[in-house]
């Protein structure tokens, strides 16, 4: 395995007095797709938000391309080349599709990257091209999910934190999502995808971590997770 792009160690996070994450550890290598799995409330979103600096109190270490992220502001973290796609999409509904993309636009942090442009994204997400000048609030849930990913890509990130992309969208869109993740992987972007849906994760990811009550309980290749009924029953199935 190559040197990790993102390396999280001893990460703890708190909401008020409640500790949510306990010494979370994992890695993401360049160009790799890793699934972060766990039941509702396991702490997946909290982990991603802690990495992005969106949680007020966190400690431990998050190393991204040799930069320590703990202590940085959210915008500084994003500018290092880390993209974040929230689970509740958080589209700017008052803005048009193209304006949403504009908010996300940043020059690549790595000169060798081929920058994402709206046109390049529209070929990846054909639905968005038609809705270009429509208000984003009027789009369907699936289209909004696509838009939120496209918006993040406009920042030319080297790694993306993708929070539950398959949640609450139609099966046909899920299929598109799978193709899209494969496409992104090919272009060299590393992806950390938080998921509850094991079949989905198994299709897109190389490796998996399983989170339960804020602690990492399992790590390994996604194939071995599929075979490990014990872990699946204890930490994933309802």
């Amino acid at each position, binding site marked *: 395995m190559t040197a990790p792009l993102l390396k999280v160690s001893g990460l703890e996070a708190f909401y008020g*007095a409640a500790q949510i994450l306990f010494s979370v550890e994992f890695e993401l290598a360049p160009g790799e797709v890793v699934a972060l799995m766990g039941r509702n409330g396991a702490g997946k979103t909290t982990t991603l938000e802690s990495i*992005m600096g*969106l949680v007020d*109190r966190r400690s431990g270490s998050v190393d991204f391309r040799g930069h320590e992220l703990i202590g940085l*502001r*959210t*915008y500084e973290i*994003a*500018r290092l080349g880390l993209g*974040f796609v*929230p689970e509740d999409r*958080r589209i*700017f*509904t*008052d*803005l048009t599709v193209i*304006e*949403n993309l*504009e*908010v*996300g*636009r*940043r020059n690549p942090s790595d000169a060798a990257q081929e920058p994402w442009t709206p046109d390049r994204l529209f070929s990846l997400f054909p639905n968005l091209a038609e809705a270009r000048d429509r208000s984003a609030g009027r789009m369907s849930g699936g289209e909004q999910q696509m838009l939120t990913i496209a*918006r*993040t890509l406009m*920042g030319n990130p080297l790694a993306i934190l993708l929070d539950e992309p398959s949640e609450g969208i139609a099966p046909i869109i899920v299929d598109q999502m799978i193709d899209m993740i494969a496409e992104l992987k090919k272009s060299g972007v590393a992806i950390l995808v938080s998921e509850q849906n094991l079949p989905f994760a198994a299709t897109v990811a190389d490796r998996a971590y399983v989170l339960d009550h804020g602690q990492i309980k399992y790590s390994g290749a996604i194939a071995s997770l599929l075979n490990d009924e014990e872990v699946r029953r204890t930490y994933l199935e309802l």
Partner: protein
Amino acid sequence: MSLSGLFVQALNGLAAASTLFLLASGLSLIFGVTRIVNFAHGSLYMLGAYVAWSLTDRLQGVFGFWFAIFASAATIGVVGMLIELTILRRIYRAPELFQLLATFALTLVIKDATLAMWGAEDLLGPRAPGLAGAITILGRRVPQYDLALIASGPLVLIALQLLLTRTRWGVLVRAATQDREMVAALGVNQAVLFTSVFALGAALAGLGGALQLPREPAGLSMDMTAIGDAFVVVVVGGMGSIPGAFVAALLIAEVKALCIALGDWQTPLGFVVAFPKFTLVAEFAVMAIVLILRPWGLMGRPDVAIRPQATTSAQLAPPGRGYDLAYLVLGAVLLTVPLLVETRSYTLVFGIDVFVAILFAASLHFLMGPGGMHSFGHAAYFGLGAYAAALCAKALNLPMWSALLAAPVGGFIGAVVFGWFCVRLSGVYLAMLTLAFSQIVWSIVYQWDGLTGGSNGIVGVWPTSIFSSKAAYYCLTLIVCGGATFVLRRILFAPFGYAMRAARDSVTRSAAIGLDVRRIQWIAFAIAGAFAGLAGGLFAFSKGSISPETLGVGRSIDGLVMVLLGGVDTLTGPIVGASVFLFLQDQIARHVEYWRAMLGLFILALVLAFPAGIVGTIRQWTFRR
């Protein structure tokens, strides 16, 4: 009433609307992005007029004049930038009450700074060179400058719209208005965005003030009139909506102009309706109608109004027996004071002031703490009580006891009427509405010479003979205020008090268990208003005279500072806060010329030292490792 007269008034209204729009658009923009309600916006407007006065004085000719106007706007933009960098930046995450208080404090500082630099006299500005004349329309003369002013509103609207839709900066501003956190997660440095938005909003206010100079002299009361008007416009238009502000400004200015144009109307029934007097309440009426139909304003959105409470308030424990006993003992000890000091002692006068302030602060605390409704216009109820009492005593010649009964009734009626509107809103909207109402009451009292004596107020309101000595009146206020404060506290631990706190903590949950939240809040308003009115009545008889200042915004701020000093989450808060505040004010006012600025700086220091509130800051300290 002739058609041409109507037309001229309509033009006049358009000119006024432009100024209103310049003011309100900046306020709305700043609120949209930073979620801070900038009470200092009126002060920036005033400052714009003063700076323009100084600059137009030095720069002559057409070019010089317009250069001076725009330079004034730019100067105020820079002032706004400095304010954002030094103060606001530190308090974006503080409870909104603290943010409001900080910008309130700024108004005090700016007012005294203006007084120090330009003096107390109104300063008459120059006519605009090249536009000093008038043109004749329909046989009436219309000042050319008014036409220029009329054009400025739509021009600024178009420029702002282009800026917001055609530039990357504008797109970011609109995105941040919706979801600041997400904008940051996409790599946008909000600090830069916030500073620039604040600077632009300030510059717009400055431009409004500067443009007003040829029509109206620069004066020290501009700030409060302007902020009152701007709030009404922003609330009517919908917070955060620029086109909304434009429409609202037009609507309000034209309704006012229409009132003037209609003049006095001889009704068939014989009496005269003086429409021009309605200008005082026109904006109030417009706002009332709009808020009934659309609580979030003409073009606002329901969702931008509510901001989740940063922290839930601490639990209040019912006071035990020991507490009541201590309260009684303290009261008894205070009752012996008149025996220990001279009859005309200043101590007694000071004591009376403190008791009145405690009752006032306790009534405000009732509304703000357990009620969860931030009133920025509580002086209105105090003042209505004071005027009700004074009018009973002077105009109706009623005895003092009945005048003192009228006082809470006055406050109660005011609170019932205004509260009905206010409880339909929450958070910042509610705070702004309370302030707007109090400004309206103030301007009615200030201008209704026939009833209230206008700016002179009502004099010779003295207690009946048995209470004419300071000592006797001291005992009366002690007993009444002490008793009333005790009753207020009792209400908090009656079923109504519990319902009120439940309504504050979760509107949806309270509604789910069958509580009528609005009704509860409305009753809370009425109770707080009645007790504030009682305090006002006692105040009137203690001073012997009252003036519009009795219900001015200054007193509302004083109340807020008292409550915040003591702590919103504690029962003894208002008592301690009022006592400490009065003591400080007494000391500062006696020894310092610019006491307002001192007070403002004191509040700013308080807010900056405890950005999350005193309790919140201590909690944060204990969490840090």
